[in-house]
């Protein structure tokens, strides 16, 4: 039988994953640009903010990979005390 639910999952995951990573990275780029402005208010804070955003995007990617690779997934769930 056709696994329609699977398609829905793929659609949602793709959407959420890609949008999150792109948004975080774009914010990082924007904050980076702000911090390089000659008349910026607080260039340090903006730079820091940009790194945080980049960090989030990388985190999202790593989380995705963990979810997909069975050994990693089991190990991660083990850390949370959930047996898979």
């Amino acid at each position, binding site marked *: 039988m*056709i*696994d329609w639910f699977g398609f829905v*999952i793929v659609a949602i995951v793709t959407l959420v994953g*890609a949008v999150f*990573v792109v948004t975080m*990275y774009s914010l990082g780029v*924007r904050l980076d640009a702000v911090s*390089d402005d000659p008349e910026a208010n607080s260039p340090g804070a903006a730079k820091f903010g940009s790194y945080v955003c980049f960090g989030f995007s990388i985190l999202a990617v790593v989380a995705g990979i963990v979810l997909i690779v069975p050994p990693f997934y089991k190990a991660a769930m083990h850390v949370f005390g959930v047996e898979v």
Partner: protein
Amino acid sequence: MVVLVIALALFFDFTNGFHDTANAMATPIATGAIKPKTAVALAAILNLVGAFLSTEVAKTISGGIINEGGPNGVAITPEMIFAGLMGAVLWNLFTWLLGLPSSSSHALFGGLIGAAIVGTWSFGAVNFMVVISKVLLPAILAPAIAGLVAYLCTRLAYGITRRSDPDSGDKLTQKRGGFRRGQVFSSSLVALAHGTNDAQKTMGVITLVLVASGLQTAGTGPHLWVITACAIAIAGGTYAGGWRIIRTLGSGLTDVKPAQGFAAETSTAAAILASSHLGFALSTTHVASGSVIGSGLGRKGATVRWGAIGKIGIAWLLTLPSAAIVGGLAALLIRTGTVGLVIVAILGLGAILFMFYRSQREVVDHNNAISDVDAVGEALNIPSKKEREKLAAKARAAQKVAEKAARRAAETAAVRADAQTALDRADTAVLKAMTKAAAQAEAPKDKAKIDAKKGNK
């Protein structure tokens, strides 16, 4: 026999890497985010790693599509698989040589299906339900999903990074070049995803052979040595395919901007990874192309060349049937016995060598070397900023001319109206004069009559 099939399967994996290297790395190479040599090496390593990560797709292939064993199934012999692989490999090389966009995955499926149907002379050999749900439907939906997501992400990326000075409205530094570095990561992701999806297919086929020849129980996943062998094969093919690309750089690649490329690749990677997890066997070519189109549409002023897209779509649809036909023909030959098998093997080898030889000789240029994804870029017409401004200026000039013409028409109409009024007045005046004259002409007559009467009296 089994060994021969395994060897051919690994060769197919190799050609798969060859064909698809550029799908992951084309855009960052195009925007200059990464050096070609580094890109190719990176892609090879990541494909290798990706192959180990997930085995869902392999299970689909080995257990799903073809009904092996059991009361309802048919006996799938290694010879059949050999024929199927031969069909896939030949079709793969053929399209690669001609620069036609083709999905290695569909070639594989087509070859196997064709060989199975002809080999067992019945349509019952293939579980069409699985083919539809895990191959054909994903082939249509996944690029669509990836394209849609890429479109959204491109708009997001451009929107979030668009800054203008609140006072003067000028554009401030946007540093979208930062996306270039991100592209290195996103295309690495795509290469990884490719490994999880494409190397699996060969693993599935090899497992199928092992099951069919009784060396492995049906329903189990692929062995470790199978996984390793396929991973190395696809990584090798990826690396080897890269040299062809490196040779041609500088001949004009699709106009892809870093932010757009980043959005497209992230969408592709997400779609492929999610699908691999569910066991959907995808064509990375299709998904990547869908993302490129979606992200291209997200840019300002992009228009779609429907003709080119139609051509690409048709080529995609034809791949599976075409490979099926070649696989079926090979199976037909093999049915005649060992002689047939030898003939197929020799013909196949000859064809492979011939195509390889031709590939070394012909001119490698933009059209056939870079990637199918790059070719897809031709389907969109994204005017650059200069072109956009030119178009806008043209539109303004056209508008001015139209206004002038309208004004002139209005003037002419006004003049005509005045003339008409004057004419009307003149008419009225003439009429009045005539009436008066007529009245006067009447009046003296009466007067004469009255005078005459008076005179008579």
